[in-house]
């Protein structure tokens, strides 16, 4: 059998093959072009020869199944698949530029850069998880960056799709993955938990901040399993300038039990983007590894990690959404603010993993502020935060599940929408006032949010009286100042 018929200059169903970019143990990559497609392409073909790892062809089958089903900026665009007779191949969008592997000689990186990078990767993972896929091989060489900044995940050969047969899981007894990055449950053969990707990202962030891999690069199964009971040295022990909040996040990602990590990658991305809102626990204070006795106890008794039986939902956003509640703090909106709180209070018991972000928009004038107004602005900002906390107090949510944000903008609706887009919000709860004088204006905030938000929006409104009960007031289009309702 010829190993490949794909070579520079060859034409594959209209795709013109260019230079070979890479030849690994599993697959060959070639540059390619097509007269009708303006962006650069990539041909990926598995290596079929005697002695090839059987996982190469199964991984390719998985990629054939998964890639055509993925969309969005965080994956390479699937173009076509075909076969030269004996040699199957995939044609994908080619993402220019090197992978994160190129950064390894520069490690350790400044912690702020790692946090930004981590947030971008978490955002990409969230997008993937929402499409029913767990990547299971998150590592620097599988992470590319678009010129526009988004992280792109590549290589779905080890991935699990929640709604497709798992060829990789069924065929191989040994866990497949990349040793330094594999989550403990993945080491034990569990392949359907999206939180395994959080673990890998935690390893990556740890490595990039400290320059050291938290669990080394074990070559045997016994070495891989060690991470189940042996905790790594805390990042701050190796890198004292790593802030406690970043250590908190990294160590939470590296928790042995998936349930102790973030409920979803969206929660993780949000934490990385809002350090001031990260709830600090003992994780953030740790300066050395756990004592030997604790490790022994974990090794032999308490903490044996067991694989839960049955189906784990591949998307946790069902019961762990990010809720954004837009609250109007003006006195005349007090009734609707109360109604909003009661609505949120009724929703929370059904959503045990939900995280609540309380938003208020502080309207800025469009003209540059002078110093005195700026000071006043800061005071208003702090005052609003206090009032938001006061609004939320009856919800009785523990720290870490709730956060408070005063957005400053001349345009309430776009401020809310911007927040929703940047923070992976799943559900917006927003009030609309029934007062007929301002409704047309105020309603326009909630209706603009409802129309343009990329997620569910609940508009809360007090039950209006029948029309005939109203004293008709003119629908005034005035410039009355208002806050978001």
């Amino acid at each position, binding site marked *: 059998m010829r190993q490949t018929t794909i070579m520079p200059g060859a034409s594959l169903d209209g795709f013109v093959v260019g230079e070979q970019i890479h030849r690994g143990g599993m697959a060959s990559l070639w540059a390619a072009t097509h007269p009708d497609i303006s962006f650069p392409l990539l041909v990926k073909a598995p290596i079929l020869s005697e002695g090839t790892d*059987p996982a190469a*062809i199964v991984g390719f*089958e998985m990629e*054939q*199944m998964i890639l055509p089903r993925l969309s969005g900026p965080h994956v390479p665009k699937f173009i076509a698949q075909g076969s030269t007779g004996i040699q199957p191949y995939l044609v994908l969008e080619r993402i220019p530029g090197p992978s994160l592997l190129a950064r390894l000689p520069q490690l350790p990186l400044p912690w702020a850069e790692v946090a930004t990078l981590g947030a971008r990767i978490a955002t990409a993972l969230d997008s993937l998880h929402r499409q029913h896929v767990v990547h299971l091989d998150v590592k620097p060489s599988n992470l590319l960056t678009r010129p526009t900044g988004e992280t792109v995940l590549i290589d779905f050969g080890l991935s699990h799709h*929640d*709604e*497709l*047969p*798992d*060829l990789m899981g*069924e*065929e191989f007894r040994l866990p497949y993955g990349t040793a330094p990055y594999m989550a403990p449950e993945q080491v034990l053969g569990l392949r359907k938990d999206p939180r395994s990707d959080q673990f890998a990202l935690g390893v990556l962030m740890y490595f990039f901040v400290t320059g050291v891999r938290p669990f080394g690069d074990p070559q045997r199964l016994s070495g891989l399993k060690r991470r189940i009971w042996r905790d790594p040295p805390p990042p701050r022990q190796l890198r004292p300038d790593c802030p406690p909040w970043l250590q908190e996040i990294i160590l939470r990602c590296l928790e042995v039990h998936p349930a102790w990590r973030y409920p979803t990658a969206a929660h993780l991305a949000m934490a990385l983007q809002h350090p001031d809102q990260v709830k600090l626990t003992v994780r953030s204070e740790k300066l050395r590894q756990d004592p030997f006795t604790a490790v022994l106890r974990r090794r032999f008794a308490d903490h044996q990690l067991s694989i839960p039986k049955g189906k784990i939902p591949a998307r946790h956003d069902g019961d762990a959404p990010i809720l954004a509640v837009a609250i109007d703090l003006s006195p005349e909106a007090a009734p609707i603010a109360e109604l909003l709180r009661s609505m949120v209070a009724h929703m929370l018991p059904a959503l045990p993993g939900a995280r609540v972000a309380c938003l208020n928009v502080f309207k800025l004038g469009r003209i540059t502020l002078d110093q005195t107004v700026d000071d006043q602005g800061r005071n208003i900002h702090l005052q609003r935060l206090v009032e938001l906390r006061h609004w939320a107090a009856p919800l009785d949510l523990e720290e870490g599940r709730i956060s408070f944000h005063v957005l400053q903008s001349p345009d309430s609706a776009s401020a809310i929408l911007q927040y929703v887009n940047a923070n992976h919000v799943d559900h917006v709860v927003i009030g609309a006032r029934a007062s007929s004088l301002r409704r047309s204006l105020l309603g326009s905030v909630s209706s603009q949010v409802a129309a343009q938000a990329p997620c569910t929006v609940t508009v809360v409104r007090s039950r209006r009286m029948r029309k005939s009960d109203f004293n008709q007031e003119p629908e005034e289009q005035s410039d009355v100042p208002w806050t978001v309702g």
Partner: protein
Amino acid sequence: MRIALLADIHANRLALEACLAHARSQGTDRLVFLGDYVGYGPQPNEVLEQIMAETAQGAIAVAGNHDQAVANDRDAMTPDAETAMVWTRGQLGPEARDFLASLPLRFEDGTRLYVHASPQTYPPWIYIRESRDARRALEASRAQTIFCGHTHLAALHGITATGQLVSFAPVPSVPVPLPSQRRWLTVVGAVGQSRDGNPAAAYALLDTTTSEITHFRVPYDVQAAAAAILEAGLPPALAARLRKGL
């Protein structure tokens, strides 16, 4: 080409009509009936008239164990199934009986094999419930893809040339690719008597161009179908299980 695969109709006219309408809306080019047209349900004649009309127009139909039991009572049945079978025999005219007797046990359609229960020889009628049943079934045939029913529970099994088996519970409405590197066995859920706790009718649609199979769940008037069972004087337990999909 789009091929609709319908199994275990069990004299349930409303469920059959709902599935056929759904299949037509999906652009189905060919109908394949995987057996068990009668038994349990109250409308054996109406269902068989429909199947005969479709086969006259090119649809493919194979025989199931209930279809064979009309002519002989060689196989043991559960008491309710037996009661329904005795009732069914009394309902069917000679034309329907001749049609059932004429049905083949298997039908090879290019690289595809259609059977009611499994490619192994009869009797017994084998239930493919677990991976090891699927392995035996796949090893008993050379067909690239095998389609069957009989268990009333949808499943998908694939095997490589080296004997590696993957088993999968299909998610409704999600197309699953069937890569040609392995052979596949599809167990289609039941049109007329669901047994997975969801009373909706089930069938599958194969797209031979994209080589993808999609399992569909189709709601139909289960209450009316259950009422017809009671009206026909069939065992009330058969009406109850239909409502619950058990």
